[in-house]
């Protein structure tokens, strides 16, 4: 349909650049929702993998971060204090995803599709990609390479047991423009914008997930035992 191939068949994809905030379409091409956030499962060995798409205000508002996100989330909760699962987003399992391209296409119809996010399986813990993005990265010897800007994923497993394993973190200074894709994509210009964004993100690099020693989800920071590798693009 479009010239962007199916990223599920590629070696890797970047969560924020290629998957978050994309339109989700059903089998017939009818629109369902946007990818508001992604479910991140952490097993007992602390391996991280994306296991599902999270949908709805409960997923979107926390991603707005800061005062605005907090205020919107609190208002959203207050408008429905009587609901037990107000803060639980809706969920689409990765097994239903047919293609990740310019949009995310599912293998099913949209009627009655969205149910609330299931509880984590035993031994697993649920986080969100939105929590990982923006986390402060502390390198070895007091080095501060910046924040997590994106999460690089590798599709693994058959359709029914599909996971997108976290292989690297894209880390750099928290500056505008990383989603534009100039640091990783294939662009024609325009020269001025290209140069400015490239310059703003000249310190951006890749941190292999094996180089992450601990992740503090509460305090929003993670420790790394090595320096960044150069960033590779498409």
């Amino acid at each position, binding site marked *: 349909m479009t010239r*962007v191939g199916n990223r599920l068949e590629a070696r890797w994809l970047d969560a924020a650049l290629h998957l978050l*905030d994309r339109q989700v379409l059903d089998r017939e091409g009818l629109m369902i*929702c946007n990818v508001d956030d992604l479910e991140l499962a952490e097993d007992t060995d602390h391996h991280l993998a994306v296991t599902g798409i999270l949908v709805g205000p409960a997923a*979107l508002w926390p991603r*707005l971060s800061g005062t605005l996100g907090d205020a919107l989330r609190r208002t959203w909760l207050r408008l429905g204090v009587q609901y037990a699962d107000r803060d639980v987003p809706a969920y689409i399992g990765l097994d239903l995803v047919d293609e990740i391209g310019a949009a995310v296409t599912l293998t099913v119809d949209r009627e009655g599709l969205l149910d609330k996010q299931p509880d984590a399986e035993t031994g697993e813990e649920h986080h969100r990609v939105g929590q990982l993005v923006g986390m402060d990265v502390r390198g070895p010897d007091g080095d501060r390479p910046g924040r997590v800007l994106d999460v690089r994923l590798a599709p693994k497993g058959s359709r029914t047991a599909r996971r997108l394993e976290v292989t690297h973190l894209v880390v750099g200074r928290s500056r505008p423009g990383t*989603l534009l894709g100039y640091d990783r994509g*294939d662009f*024609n210009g*325009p020269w001025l914008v290209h140069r400015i964004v490239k310059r703003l993100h000249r310190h951006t690099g890749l941190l292999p997930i094996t180089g992450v020693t601990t992740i503090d989800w509460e305090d929003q920071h993670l420790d790394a035992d090595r320096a960044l590798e150069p960033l590779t693009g498409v």
Partner: protein
Amino acid sequence: MKKVFGIALGILTAIGGFVDIGDLVVNAQVGARFGMSLGLVVIVGIIGICLFAEMSGRVAACSGRATFDLVRERLGPRVGLMNLIASFAVNLLTFIAEIGGVALAVMLVTSVSEVLIVPFVGLLVWAVLWRARFTVMENVLGLLGLCLVIFTVALWKLGPSWSDLTSQMATVDKPASEDWWTYAYFAVALFGAAMTPYEVFFFSSGGVEEKWTDKDLGTMRSNVFIGFPLGGVLSLSIAACAAVVLGPLKVDVAALSQVGLPVAVAFGKIGIAVVIVGFVAATFGAACETGLSAGYSLAQYFGWQWGKFVRPRKAAKFHAVLILATLVAVAVLMTGVDPIMVTELSVVFSAVALPLTYFPILVVANDREYMGQHANSSVTNFFGTIYLVLIVIAAVAAIPLLIITHMGAGS
């Protein structure tokens, strides 16, 4: 043959659909006060909208994604939300202005106060969005909008001094009675009127829905590069007519009847009849487009089903937004607020909101992953960057100029 007809129809509706209430009012105001001395700005604006619409149409054809979809994708949910609020507000303001414009045009015939006409116009707009075979409406309104060509004919009939008009256009100068601040304010307003963001939402969303592919790029370009400039000629004719007839009388255009006055001078009653049909068609068509665009931006940000061809029950939230927007527009106009003033505000705020959608489209039009061989050429990027700078300057200057000049009343 069918294809030629399709292309011709596309071009004709692009011409008729180019002019909306903002173009009508601002061009007449500027013509009456500044002669053709701001004509260059109109031309700059027309080139700008061609560039912007062509890029967004190309992005829609190559990626299958509409403008606001890409805004959230490329700017993130946070900046995207700010963008949504600003764009939606401007869109709603323009929607109010267009509905007010239809009411004013109908008032010229019926002499019933426009406040009484507004609810019926609102109902009719909603009914068209809800029920109509939209393509038919679009074509009918676009073709009827061609009645505004009478401004061009009237100008010729009025027999102005062409050398005067062209020399006013070619030089950066102003009448001695006006100051440079006001000149700058109206330049921004004209720019905003020519490059209204809703035109691009509407154009690109239509492209996505009609499933344009690489093969449709030729048709899309012919609509944009022939239709829009000819539509721009109508804008310039309105300004020139006002300059010739209203300028010497020192009329400050504050009513739609004054916009049509030059045609009445040239052709009498028949002229008035034709011009009113043109007014109604142009504003009614634009009202439908702005209403839809308000729905598009909200639905595309949140991922809801949208579309002018999708049945309301399949795009329930989208249609709920259209109903609410129509109700708000009618309610605002029922307060008796002057639609002409709403129009003036809407074009200025259009200029403010423009960079928010222009920039993401400029970036995506360069992404080879989406665009392949159809990514921007270096020539397009050269002009694209010049316009990026121009658009940002206009956006930053708009509100200070609005305040300094008291909405163009003079500082």
